[in-house]
């Protein structure tokens, strides 16, 4: 079945010394490079989205309008709720100090309503309604806000970017395929005489196709691996640069599955190019008797 991968020296001589498509490996290398970078970005975005999503999934804030004079009582109420942990109170004073960075002295104005906040994790969301009722009995107007609701637009944007990256990967793969089709047609034209002779002698379309299939497989493999290696170098530079700058550490990273996907991309591109070339050659051969 895979005999065509290991042709005899005589079979290799059939196409002569001419290269399959000249610029084909270069085109595929550029496509592979771009696909790898875009795919890595997409995967990093997915990782970031997952990280953000998981870290805020159970995080809530009890907002207490009017500064929360009875903040200690509210904190005790929250803490006493089963399944609640990591309770952290942000007093009105702390909030005003934070706001001062943007608002200046106006942050101290009594006319500016600043709530107190109590952040907490709740494993069981079904208890939040009763917690809110109890909080409201202490501080009317208190309400619980889920962090995931606040961050939803951001997560939505991250998911959208993931799809954009995925679309770009598909688009570049299609462009690489188109380049392969053009190269295959060029190769067929170059070797038309040989093909006609072989057909006349009784060669099947598959026998003819296998000669070209192997050529494009080699070209595509060389091109996609070269592009992938260049992309890997760029990604390593970016990662080390980010680490030096103190960015991204503890943030989004590429996990083992992401790395496996990236490692498989050049092979997938090679297989796609080979399949496309095979289909293009077979289609073209069918036009002749």
């Amino acid at each position, binding site marked *: 079945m895979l005999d065509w991968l290991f042709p*005899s020296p*005589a*079979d290799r*001589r*059939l196409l*002569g*010394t001419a290269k399959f498509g000249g610029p084909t490996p270069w085109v595929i290398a550029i496509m592979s490079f771009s696909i790898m970078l875009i795919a890595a970005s997409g995967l990093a975005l997915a990782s970031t989205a997952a990280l953000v999503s998981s870290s805020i999934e159970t995080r809530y804030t009890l907002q207490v309008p009017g500064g929360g004079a009875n903040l200690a009582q509210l904190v005790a109420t929250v803490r006493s709720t089963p399944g609640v942990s990591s309770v952290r109170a942000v007093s009105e004073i702390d909030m005003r100090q934070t706001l001062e960075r943007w608002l200046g002295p106006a942050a101290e104005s009594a006319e500016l309503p600043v709530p107190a906040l109590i952040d907490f994790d709740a494993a069981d969301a079904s208890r939040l309604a009763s917690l809110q009722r109890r909080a409201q009995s202490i501080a009317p107007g208190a309400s619980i806000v889920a962090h995931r609701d606040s961050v939803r637009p951001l997560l939505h944007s991250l998911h959208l970017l993931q799809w954009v990256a995925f679309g770009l990967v598909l688009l570049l793969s299609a462009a690489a395929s188109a380049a392969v089709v053009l190269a295959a047609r060029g190769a067929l034209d170059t070797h038309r*005489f*040989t093909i*006609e*002779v*072989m*057909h*006349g*002698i*009784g*060669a*099947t*379309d598959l*026998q003819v196709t296998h000669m070209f299939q192997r050529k494009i497989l080699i070209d595509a493999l060389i091109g996609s691996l070269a592009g992938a290696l260049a992309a890997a170098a760029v990604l390593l530079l970016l990662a080390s640069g980010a680490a030096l700058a103190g960015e991204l550490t503890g943030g989004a990273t590429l996990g083992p599955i992401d790395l496996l996907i990236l490692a498989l991309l050049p092979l997938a591109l090679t297989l796609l190019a080979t399949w496309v070339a095979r289909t293009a050659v077979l289609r073209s051969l*069918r036009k002749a*008797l």
Partner: protein
Amino acid sequence: MHGAWQGAWATRPPLESAGRQVAAVAEFDSVGLRYGTGAEVLRDLDFRLRTGSFYFLTGPSGAGKTSLLKLLYLAQRPTRGRIKLFGEELSEAPREDLPPFRRRIGVVFQDFRLIRHLSAFDNVALPLRIAGASDEDVEGPVREMLAWVGLADRASARPPTLSGGEQQRVAIARAVINRPELLVADEPTGNVDADMANRLMGLFTAMNRLGTTVVVATHDVSLISATPGAQLIRLENGTLVDPTGTLKNPPRPPRSAG
């Protein structure tokens, strides 16, 4: 080219047809052919080529000889009528069914159609390799065939470095290496001198004696008269002059020895 060839090639059966014999190698039934929307270049062809016979196809230039040969070696489909080859109706057969039949046909093209970047050896070996023969199975027969056509020492030469006559012999060696049941030659002696032409005809006759049906398109009347027992198919303006296809070339009396 050596005279009587007694090598292994001559005694082994053809690769894909052992045991299959039909009375007529080819049967044409009301066959017509036109290229594109042009006028018919062949019209109402009705004839049979009997297995093991030797035919000359003659006619003036433009009569349709090459087109008829193309139909015979499955390079062209008829636009009407039916063609049976080796007992199978192939006029409308799916193209993927044709390669096994093509392997039973040897073709000597007028312009040789050798692959320029392959050596004489590889050109001759091509039909065997396409039929699936291994390198070991190819080596002996090809060397033997090249020796038979007098090109043993030119095995590694490429066509552009061979003379016209040498290229013609490589083309003939390639056509017969597979022991075809039908050998079709289009003006095979057009590029060789009289001596070589006679030797090539000797090869075709030897093939014919081994059971191959031979069809040679030629203008050369001397070839026809020098081949006793051969039958004549004459085309004029795309039609057979004798619609029965049974015109006989009167056999010459055998030359007296000495």
